[in-house]
């Protein structure tokens, strides 16, 4: 059959697809996963497996029995949500809480709004913040890295550098003394500190970022804007009073700033589309994060910051529109 096929444009497909991008994100998350397995061992394995399996399962069940849609779990997006949720949990978190978090992330964060691409908030963060508010005790006891690789629920716990700083300041200890309890910058970069499973190893997250930039899964704008804003804001505070505010490097390397900036804030459907919009969005996240860390009652604020800026995404997209292809810039008459 030799027929001429007539079809509308585009005629050449780049091969880009949801599936390809999602598996790309999973590959980019592998270094951080390896780091969390190295530092937290058994706990990281159990938490990550449970979270991924639960997210995929909940998506399948909701699509099959409630929405009665064809299942789309093969595209990998539920697995990415599960992986990111696990990265935001302490590795000694009990199973029941992971299951609730996965159900909230997929059920409330994603499927309630219509599924893939329709969610206004990052689903993994919806799950994480829901758990943080619901189970504050379990969500804020972090196992010590390396020390308890063979244990899960009964891991020895310790504080994160950020909570050490916050509590130290609240008790009125001198700042230099408080900062003496915090690991060195090299340890912070490599991930030798208490924290959630995937957020600690800065070096692994940066490798993931380089891979995603290289394969064009994301552009550099959002991560750079977030990290830049955090560094600039804390830099100004640090210059004003070095005896009361930690250095910008400390703020960038601790907590979830790198994980959030690279993997959570760049979620396609909850971040702006235009380059300028991405910069505004990223700077907003950075500024809110520092505000919460410095003046709020929580030691860490990146999750809240990303969710808050997710809310502004439609507004940003409305006011900062990408220029239409071929549009002539109007001259001011």
């Amino acid at each position, binding site marked *: 059959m030799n027929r001429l096929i007539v079809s509308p444009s585009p005629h050449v497909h780049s091969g880009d697809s949801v599936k390809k991008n999602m598996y790309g994100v999973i590959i980019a998350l592998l270094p951080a996963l390896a780091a969390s397995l190295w530092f937290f061992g058994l706990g990281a394995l159990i938490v990550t497996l449970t979270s991924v399996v639960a997210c995929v399962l909940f998506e399948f069940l909701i699509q099959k029995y409630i929405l009665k849609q064809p299942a789309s779990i093969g595209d990998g997006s539920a697995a990415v949500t599960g992986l990111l949720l696990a990265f935001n949990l302490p590795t000694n978190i009990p199973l029941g809480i992971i299951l609730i978090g996965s159900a909230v992330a997929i059920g409330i964060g994603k499927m309630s709004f219509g599924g893939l691409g329709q969610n206004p908030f990052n689903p993994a963060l919806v799950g994480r913040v*829901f758990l943080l*508010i619901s189970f504050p005790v379990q969500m804020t006891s972090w196992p010590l890295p390396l020390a308890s690789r063979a244990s899960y629920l009964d891991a020895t716990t310790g504080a994160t550098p950020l909570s050490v700083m916050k509590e130290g300041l609240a008790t009125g200890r001198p700042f230099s003394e408080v900062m003496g309890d915090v690991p060195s910058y090299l340890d912070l970069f490599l991930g030798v500190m208490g924290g959630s499973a995937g957020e600690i190893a800065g070096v692994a997250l940066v490798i993931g970022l380089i891979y995603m930039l290289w394969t064009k899964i994301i552009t550099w704008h959002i991560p750079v804007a977030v990290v830049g804003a955090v560094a600039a804001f804390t830099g100004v505070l640090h210059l004003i009073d070095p005896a009361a505010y930690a250095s910008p490097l400390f703020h960038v390397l601790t907590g979830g700033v790198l994980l959030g900036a690279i993997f959570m804030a760049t979620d396609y459907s909850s971040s702006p589309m235009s380059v300028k919009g991405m910069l505004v969005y990223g700077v907003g996240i950075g500024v809110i994060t520092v505000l919460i860390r410095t003046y709020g009652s929580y030691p860490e604020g990146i999750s809240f910051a990303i969710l808050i800026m997710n809310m502004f995404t439609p507004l940003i997209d409305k006011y900062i529109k990408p220029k239409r292809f071929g549009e002539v810039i109007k001259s001011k008459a």
Partner: protein
Amino acid sequence: MNQWSNFSKGFLKENPVFILLLGLCPALGVTSSAINGLGMGLATTFVLVMANIVVSLIKGFIPDKVRIPAFIVVIATFVTIVEMTMQAYVPALFDALGLFIPLIVVNCLVLGRAEAFASKNNVGSSIVDGAGMGLGFAFALTLLGGVRELLGSGHFFGFAIYPEDYGMLVFVLAPGAFIALGYLIAILNRLKKA
């Protein structure tokens, strides 16, 4: 109008909270437990019925341009009566609802029924409308309070169903109120369709 449908419309067809989305401030604010929701709902029902009676009685007597201030004075009077009576005879409930009782005055449901219904209908219909709407409001608040209490602290009307430690604290707080309300509306819409 058929008095029965006039009464029953407040429960599902025109439920103030789930369908009309009126009076959401108390609906989200006080419903951290079922008993609080019920108490607030019944207090609102009383104000609603009394305000409807008085407004429908004096509707011909009030010049159009000052009807809103006149209605507000009537409503505020009944709210203050409820507040003082509660404080005197059920101090425990008054402690729990505290701040929200005076807020019944600005509950748009009460003014809305006075303006939209009682100022256009006779006394009998207005009583039925006020009772229906008020009980529908109480039903919605009790349901919302029950769901939040059960999920948030493992109790239902104060009886322990499961240990409090397993509860999801978020449902006791304001964000949980929004989440619970959203899902209740979704479920009711689904049921109405079926």
